[in-house]
């Protein structure tokens, strides 16, 4: 065999003629057990989620915004239990209404309160002062933050559910179904959202206003309900387009075909193969949806279409603060700063999530 090979070899061939070497054990060094072990050790099995979280934790902006959000959350959860005032309560000293506690500065006490303190009583300080109706401003800001965050969260979840369902059906079915569903999306896209909110709140006020009395929806107010309805009607379209686009790309992957070949049904394919592969994009866009919902709520409250008084929201607080802006500028600053903090940190967190989880941005 060796001779045959030698005969066939081209003179100019650079191939090493192995037959000229004689290999015995002295040429090779046997690998030690330790060296063999080195070959075995592989990196720890990581899931996609763990990998993403690791990257997220390395992003200082994202970590910072998580910390800010945790602080804000714990304040709005804990503060109402510590501060002895409620958001609609007019400050009273010794059981008597304190009319002097109007428009106090932060950490300032009213005349009656000072008297009471001098007599040996204890008064919880007004951390952010009081408003024109003698209500503690700090607790109002805390409740306003609660309302704004809750609205943002629920509106985003609403958008997520509707958008996910609509988008996945449209993307997975394809063909004519997709065509019709996308034209509906196009129509909804072209509706002016503010106009719809205003019209809806007027209509709902007429029809729902009385029925709501006495139910838990009353404190929310008709305006808030119309805001949710508008989110449910209009704002899901961008989410549904995103989901559809994701599904269109994923459904052409061979592993989806492989699942079909094993006999998996559509439901299983969507749940096991398609959704897990686009879930990161969906989570990210939901995280980015929350600040935009908070913003919309604040904006609507600011123009007087938001929550029902006396329930505060950050936007309505900013709106009322507008009146005494020159004398009491801090009343605008507090809610505005909180809105900025929440929106900024949620946006930064969303960006961080995208950087960490989007496989296309992998370095």
């Amino acid at each position: 065999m060796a001779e045959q090979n030698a005969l066939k070899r081209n003179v100019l061939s650079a191939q090493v003629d192995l037959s000229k070497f004689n290999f015995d054990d002295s040429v090779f060094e046997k690998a030690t057990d330790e060296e063999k072990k080195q070959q075995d050790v592989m990196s720890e099995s990581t899931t996609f989620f763990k990998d993403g979280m690791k990257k997220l934790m390395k992003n200082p902006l994202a970590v910072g915004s998580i910390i800010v959000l945790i602080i804000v959350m714990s304040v709005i959860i804990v503060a109402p239990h510590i501060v002895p005032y409620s958001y609609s309560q007019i400050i009273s000293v010794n059981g008597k209404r304190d009319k002097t506690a109007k428009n106090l500065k932060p950490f300032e006490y009213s005349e009656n309160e000072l008297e009471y303190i001098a007599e040996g009583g204890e008064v919880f300080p007004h951390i952010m002062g009081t408003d024109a109706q003698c209500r503690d401003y700090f607790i109002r800001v805390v409740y306003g933050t609660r309302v704004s965050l809750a609205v943002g969260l629920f509106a985003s979840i609403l958008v997520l559910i509707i958008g996910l369902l609509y988008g996945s059906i449209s993307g997975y079915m394809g063909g004519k179904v997709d065509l019709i569903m996308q034209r509906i999306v196009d129509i909804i896209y072209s509706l002016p959202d503010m106009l719809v909110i205003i019209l809806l709140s007027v209509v709902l006020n007429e029809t729902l206003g009385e029925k709501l009395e006495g139910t838990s929806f009353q404190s929310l107010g008709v305006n808030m309900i119309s805001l949710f309805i508008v989110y449910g009607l209009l704002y899901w379209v961008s989410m549904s387009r995103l989901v559809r686009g994701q599904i269109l790309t994923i459904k052409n992957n061979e592993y989806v075909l492989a699942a079909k070949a094993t006999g998996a049904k559509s439901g299983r394919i969507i749940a096991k193969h398609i959704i897990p592969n686009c879930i990161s994009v969906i989570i990210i866009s939901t995280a980015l949806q929350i600040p935009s919902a908070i913003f919309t709520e604040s904006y609507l409250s600011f123009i007087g279409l938001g929550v029902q008084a006396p329930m505060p929201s950050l936007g309505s607080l900013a709106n009322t603060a507008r009146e005494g802006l020159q004398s009491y500028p801090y009343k605008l600053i507090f809610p505005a700063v909180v809105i900025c903090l929440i929106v900024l940190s949620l946006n930064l967190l969303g960006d961080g999530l995208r950087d960490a989880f989007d496989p296309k941005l992998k370095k």
Partner: protein
Amino acid sequence: MSSEYLIEVEDLKQYFPIKTGFFKTTPLKAVDGVTFNIKPGETLGLVGESGCGKTTVGRTLLRLYEPTSGTVKFNGEEITAKNMAEHRKNMQMVFQDPYSSLNPRMTVEDIIGEPLDVHKMYSNKNERREKILALMELVGLNAEHATRYAHEFSGGQRQRIGIARALAVKPQFIVCDEAVSALDVSIQAQVINMFEDLQAKLGVAYLFIAHDLLVVRHISNRIAVMYLGKVVEIGDADEVYEHPIHPYTESLLSAVPIPDPIQAKQSQRIVLSGDVPSPMNMPTGCAFRTRCRFATDKCAEVCPTLTDKGGGHMVACHNR
């Protein structure tokens, strides 16, 4: 109802509608009347150049596409869209690209276990795990790989995962759609040997789609050559390789590199002129006539059918 053949394909056609205008669609004839049979435990190699419809034949066989017309019989029973669900257990597929055919969000255990889940082939979790580990051992994967994700494996290992998935339901027939094309040569050899071992052990039949002619010759009992959606020649592997009759097969085989420079110099390459015609605008008569050395007027008028040239060697050509 059983017959001599495991798989009988008759006049299978698969047209895809392509939009050519605002309201106009032109059919793209990906597979245009293909007929062949596969016996139990046999390997049929399917070769042809890119875009000739090999993959489509494989996928249409498994009803991943609904065929335009034609029948596929499994064990003598015709497969329809309705009873395909039961037949999924008997027919499986190994995909070309080991990178995109495994879900990146699933562990190896879940990937291999998916067919078991779908067909509910276990009574409890332990049984499922045992079955999966047995399959992994069968294809040469370690048990500790079960909890890993597909991206942690090399191409050859991934292809083994894909093969284990196909074997999970104990099929009698597997379509290997370019199953080794994406692998490098040494891994190809391993995987091909594995295919042969499995055939000897489990008696599965393969439809082995590939464009590497030497690989196909090595593994196949019989070979079908496709050109533009039609089978132009079919016969025993050695017979087709030693005595190709159809001019397309001749030129295809002459393009196989010979690993010996002296022999390679002596052999003559039959180079085809021109490009493959578009499957949307096929030539009349014989599809190959535009590039054929022997084309006559008859070729432009009558489409040749497969005729037996002796010993089951079927060729579709007027002139040979």
